[in-house]
């Protein structure tokens, strides 16, 4: 059956799969959110130990999801991979830099003779959770606002802005406002999710004071994120977009393109509305109802919102990586994808994804049946 799929179907399918991975990454960003909360909600070494050991059992899954996101894009949309990573050099390098810092910090933080001291590793975690996610948000924002590149006849990229990608967050333009708002929303949403996750994962009776702080953090971060969410939504509804306007694949500015895309794909509108509702319900469940399962609502909500964010600029004949300096260099899922053969092979491989998700879910359930307690932080192999 897979062998008979049309090329355009495969292209849509693979953008969907990449979007699912990207959305799961946004959910798993509760690890990064928790890293930025560490300084705020954990006031004692014991509380810090609980937070770090709770997050430390998941950091690698988040990291791996990011790596898979990159790998899946490389295999299925290599022109995007080469254009964005090669072009927006500094933004990706800085993001990677923060993830390198994260990768060692859990393991090294409490180990004797770690040279830099535990505070430095906690700072590394803070940098990853804040700068890393902010920049990822700004980079994703360019799916809507465009980037400064041209492609030559061989599709080799030339970046036209000296900041090489950082201009998405740092230039003084209306588009930066969108990019940076999306980035800040993701950081604050990660903190909201982290509060829900930690309440769910750590035995509350061990640290009642921290539990109060976590419930307050959940509410506060959600509230702080709302203005940025409103900015993002207003942009999405009002901004012009980069549409494919004829069969030759010509790209042109189309007014209210993303609003039109929402109406053209009402299920995306449903994802967005349901996702935001679930997010808010998760916060209400956690902060007002003082329940512990808010993370599952917030998590599912984030995945649905994430799917909208990734699919909206790509489906319905839209350029998902537009060039602001040369419209015809813009990338669409039709022009940026691998060959039909590679997409077909990769689709067979993707049949293993449900199995992978199933064993992750089983392991997650097995390990989290029992809450994290003080005794879990005392083992020499603990973080």
């Amino acid at each position: 059956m897979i062998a008979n799929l049309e090329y355009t179907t495969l292209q849509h399918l693979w953008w969907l799969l990449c979007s699912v991975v990207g959305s799961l990454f946004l959910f798993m960003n509760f690890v990064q959110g928790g890293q930025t909360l560490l300084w705020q909600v954990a006031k004692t070494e014991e509380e810090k130990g609980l937070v770090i050991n709770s997050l430390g059992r998941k950091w690698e899954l988040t990291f791996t999801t990011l790596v898979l996101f990159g790998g899946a894009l490389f295999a299925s949309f290599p022109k995007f991979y080469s254009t964005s990573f090669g072009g927006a050099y500094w933004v990706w390098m800085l993001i990677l830099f923060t993830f390198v810092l994260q990768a060692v910090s859990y393991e090294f933080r409490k180990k004797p003779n770690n040279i830099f001291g535990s505070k430095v590793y906690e700072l590394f975690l803070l940098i990853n959770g804040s700068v890393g996610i902010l920049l990822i948000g700004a980079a994703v924002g360019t799916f809507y606002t465009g980037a400064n590149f041209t492609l030559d006849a061989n599709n080799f990229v030339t970046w036209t802005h000296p900041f090489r990608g950082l201009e998405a967050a740092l230039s003084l333009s209306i588009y930066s406002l969108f990019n940076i708002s999306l980035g800040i929303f993701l950081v604050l949403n990660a903190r909201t999710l982290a509060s829900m996750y930690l309440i769910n994962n750590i035995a509350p009776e061990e640290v009642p004071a921290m539990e109060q702080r976590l419930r307050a953090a959940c509410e506060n971060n959600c509230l702080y994120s709302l203005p940025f969410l409103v900015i993002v939504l207003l942009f999405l509804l009002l901004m012009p977009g980069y549409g494919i306007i004829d069969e030759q694949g010509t790209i042109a500015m189309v007014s209210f393109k993303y609003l039109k895309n929402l109406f053209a794909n009402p299920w995306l509108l449903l994802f967005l509305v349901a996702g935001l509702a679930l997010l808010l319900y998760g916060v209400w469940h956690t902060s007002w109802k003082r329940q512990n399962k808010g993370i599952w609502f917030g998590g599912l909500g984030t995945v649905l919102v994430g799917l909208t964010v990734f699919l909206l600029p790509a489906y319905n004949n839209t350029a998902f990586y537009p060039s602001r300096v040369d419209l015809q260099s813009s990338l669409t899922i039709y022009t940026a994808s691998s060959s039909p053969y590679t997409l077909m092979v990769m689709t067979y491989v993707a049949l293993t994804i449900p199995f992978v998700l199933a064993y992750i879910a089983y392991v997650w359930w097995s390990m989290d049946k029992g809450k994290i307690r003080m005794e879990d932080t005392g083992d020499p192999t603990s973080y």
Partner: protein
Amino acid sequence: MLENMDLTMVNWARAQFALTAMYHWLFVPLTLGITWMLAFFHTIYVKTGNEEWKRLTKFWMKLFGINFAIGVATGIILEFEFGTNWSNYSWMVGDIFGAPLAIEGIIAFFLEATFFAVMFFGWNRVSKGFHLFSTWMVAAGSTLSAVWILVANAWMQYPVGQVFNPDTARFEMHSFADVAFSPYAVNKFVHATSSSMLTAAFFIISISSWYLLRGRHLLMAKRSIVVAAVMGIFASVFTVFNGDESAYEIAQVQPMKLAAFEGLYEGKTNAGLAAFGIVNRNKQVFDDQDPFYFEIHFPYLLTLMANRSFNSFVPGMKDLVYGNPEHDILGSAQKMVRGKQAIASLDAYRQAKKNSDETDAATHLAAFNETKEYLGYGYLNAPEEAVPPVALSFYAFHIMVTLGTLFPFIFLLYLYFTKKGTLEQKKWLLGFGTITYFLGLIAGQAGWVVAEVGRQPWTIQGLLPVTIARTNLTAATVQTTFYIFLFLFTALLIAEISIMLKQISIGPEEN
């Protein structure tokens, strides 16, 4: 753009990739090898219920965890560096090269990452059986990861299963089976994993020997040594035999690499294998200088290794650069001419297509198809560019081979004296044993230098030179990130060594 290549940038990009790859490979062999030993130790604990085996398992697991973290940190850069520093490459071969990386993520990384947490923190959280299963899954995940990244690397050395699409000017996969089961990939996987296992065995032997010298943790150290030495013997014998197979394969598909790491400028029948030599670094492929200041070689052995027969011809660098009609060898000089014809035909074809002149397009496409296999050579500026750095390749190869030949004997000595029950008295062996881990690392690093430096100037052997594969960046940009990562990785390495030494000094937790 192609005419104005910034070679300095290419060299910085090469340096950055070498830096990240070499740092990464300081940690990966231990991860690859020790996970299987952890699975073995853990199995014995579950089978016997003996707490001493649990202590032993947890101790080596703790050291593995420290190593694993920094291995992950250095690994993420490598994947994305293909995009950041080699973006033209990513576009031109993403169809083929991206697939194994994505498969690695789906099949291997998640297995490793998911069960890693259970292995470390599942002692009192999951059943003993599931916990043991998780340890085996971490080992399986790390090995599967090696499979796919080595498939990708093998394809760069010996590109198979692809076609060049003249319309998009890029390579596209046409047989996944050819890519995944290429003999080069199979050999590379066996060689890299077996050599990693012997490196991990040396890691355990080094630390255990130190304990024996100090008279600490004697039972744990002796048990660890037995397991490590047995695994080490198998791994080292595999490595040696597979190394020979790899050399044969290189002779068939990358003869220039073989000539470079043997310092063979003039092709020979009955060529000898250099045992030791001091390379004349001023020697050029076109001059008549002696390639060595001093050299000892084993007669006939290179011919035997390269062709599996005596009395056959092994081409030297001169033959491969300027050609040798007597032995029907086309040199890079002749390939360059055909490559430039291929480029011209391709350009003409694309122009004709643009003008919708199908007749003209068909003519140019036919001309292109006749010379397309030499396309990559058309981007070289001189035939001599096809020669990789000889001295570096030569020394790296000979360091690797010398150490690899020595390794089985070290493991045998450990097993012999353990069986005799006199290992603790053999201070000389234990003293030497403490440095064997570094010898394993040196051999591994040298092996990758042979593989990667020996492939230069190609990103993909014979198809895509590094000057085309790069990103359009300034040298200063790449230079900056090179120093950032040099500083960062070095700082983290120092921290890792310091933590590791402290944990070794503390030793296994007491009951």
